[in-house]
């Protein structure tokens, strides 16, 4: 009796401890981010105040208003950046997934010489630091006229994302028994039909998880975008953040406002697909 109570007490305090730890961990994750969100509503004097102003005295939309305002009044072509970012991220994600599916399928379903080496080789292309790649890439793009175009940046992001996409999707196709696809073929499906009807549905979660990683990478990438975009025609939002740094000053509040506009779509998307994301990663990891 006493023993059981002790046990229950222990279990309960353990549970409490867990919740406390979770709360602290989540706070650490959220606070720096929420600080950014908060700053986007505060006047810059208050953010930089000394002694600090802990409880915001004044919340307003000034930074947002200025951002959408005219050029010369702190206006930034937000909508252009947003559309550029959206076009580039979505297109590159879709292409990366298609290319990745083809590649993943090849690795999962075919045996060929040097498979492991080719696989590692593909992965290693991701290991090249952006700063080392940016100039030669810039020169190649300039020679081919792809500088400052959506296509140029899309191509780059596809290549950044393809290795990881192949890896994840490869893991998925492996867990679909070959017999299943073969059975479908016997039933009169073509290989192509069998792929879409039998193998693809199983791999959907993998595609979702690869997709979200690819999307976030493209959405946030800065080092290469800052080199390859030259004007508002192709500048993406991370590059747009730089508009708030001028010769001597940083308009931190304004930068936060743009950052919030960047974070919201990513957050929504993540929330929507994260169920698939987890499932996707789960299979991809073990079976890879």
């Amino acid at each position, binding site marked *: 009796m006493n023993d059981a109570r002790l046990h229950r007490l222990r279990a309960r305090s353990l549970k409490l401890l867990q919740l406390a730890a979770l709360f602290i961990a989540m706070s650490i994750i959220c606070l720096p981010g929420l600080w950014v969100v908060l700053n986007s509503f505060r006047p810059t004097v208050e953010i930089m105040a000394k002694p600090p102003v802990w409880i915001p005295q004044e919340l307003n939309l000034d930074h947002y208003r200025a951002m959408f305002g005219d050029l010369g009044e702190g206006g930034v072509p937000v909508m252009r950046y947003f559309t550029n970012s959206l076009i580039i991220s979505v297109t590159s994600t879709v292409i990366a997934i298609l290319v990745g599916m083809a590649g993943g399928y090849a690795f999962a379903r075919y045996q060929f010489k040097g498979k492991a080496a080719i696989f590692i080789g593909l992965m290693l292309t991701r290991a090249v630091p952006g700063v*080392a790649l940016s100039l030669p890439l810039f020169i190649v793009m300039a020679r081919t006229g792809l500088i400052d175009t959506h296509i140029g940046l899309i191509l780059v992001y596809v290549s950044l994302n393809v290795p990881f996409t192949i890896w994840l999707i490869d893991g998925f196709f492996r867990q679909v028994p070959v017999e299943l696809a073969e059975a479908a073929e016997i039933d009169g499906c073509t290989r192509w039909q069998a792929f879409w009807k039998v193998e693809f549905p199983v791999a959907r979660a993998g595609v979702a998880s690869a997709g979200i990683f690819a999307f976030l990478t493209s959405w946030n990438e800065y080092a290469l975008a800052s080199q390859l975009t030259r004007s508002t025609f192709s500048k993406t939002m991370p590059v747009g953040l730089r508009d708030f740094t001028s010769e001597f000053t940083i308009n931190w509040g304004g930068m936060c406002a743009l950052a919030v506009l960047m974070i919201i779509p990513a957050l929504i998307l993540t929330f929507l697909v994260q169920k698939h994301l987890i499932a996707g990663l*789960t299979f991809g990891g073990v079976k890879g």
Partner: protein
Amino acid sequence: MTRPRLPAWFVLLLPAFIVLAAVVLIPLLLSLYSSFTSYRLTRPETLYNWIGTFNYEKAVQSAHFWSAFGRTVLLLTIALNLEMLLGLGLALLVNQVTYGQRLLRTIMMFPMMFSPLLVGFQFKFIFNDNVGLVNNALQSLGLTNVAIPWLVDGQLAFISILVAEMWSSTSVFAILILAGLFAVPRDPIEAAKVDGCTPWQSFRHITLPYIMPFIYIALAIRSLDVARAYDIVQIMTNGGPARRTELIWTLIGRTGYVDAKMGYANAMGYISIFLAIAFTIYFFRKLNAARAELGMGG
């Protein structure tokens, strides 16, 4: 007339090959070539001035280069290990929660929505010694009455960068490890409980082997991606003060773009690529070993 058909696997991989060749391979060959020249950005004709291995010799003999190299390895090692441990802890905590987990998982991924550039500015302000969030908090709470120079002091600056880097990347580990926890079968754990195993024992001998592949995947992905820290460091300290936080990437960036010595920068870049490759291959090996242990090698 019949042409020999290309094997199907090759056709399927062809798009990937083409894209990667165009975006990664060709530029890399170009930079490999330029690392053997005295190429200066502002004097394009110097691209044809072959100077052999001069740049490599210079890099290898440079104490600044090696200290930056060493610091980068140190940062990578500490950051990846800590991120892995924290990510594991976080994933275990979130995994315990049954109600509202979807929301928690989204919050957990919150830092992944932040562009590294933004993370740099963010933590630069948070660690500012005069008006920064951390010092203000410490002073308001009465924990200290000095302005701690987070971004200046040798150890603290390194730690500040580490914190920024960890904040932005621990999520990747947490999400992958959480996925791994979902893959752990329930039965063996129940059985272990019946057999009187402590929670630690069942974690150590059942759960951990299952999530090891995920940990190595996360490590491999992160080691591939880790040069993204460049944006963060460049903005927070730009390698300074007095080279106390100089990483190989900030050194390359400054040499190449500000000093305009691209040839030399590319030579250092190549050495740094080998670093990334070494880290990645190491984790791939570990990954395959962990999978083999689970009988899922392949």
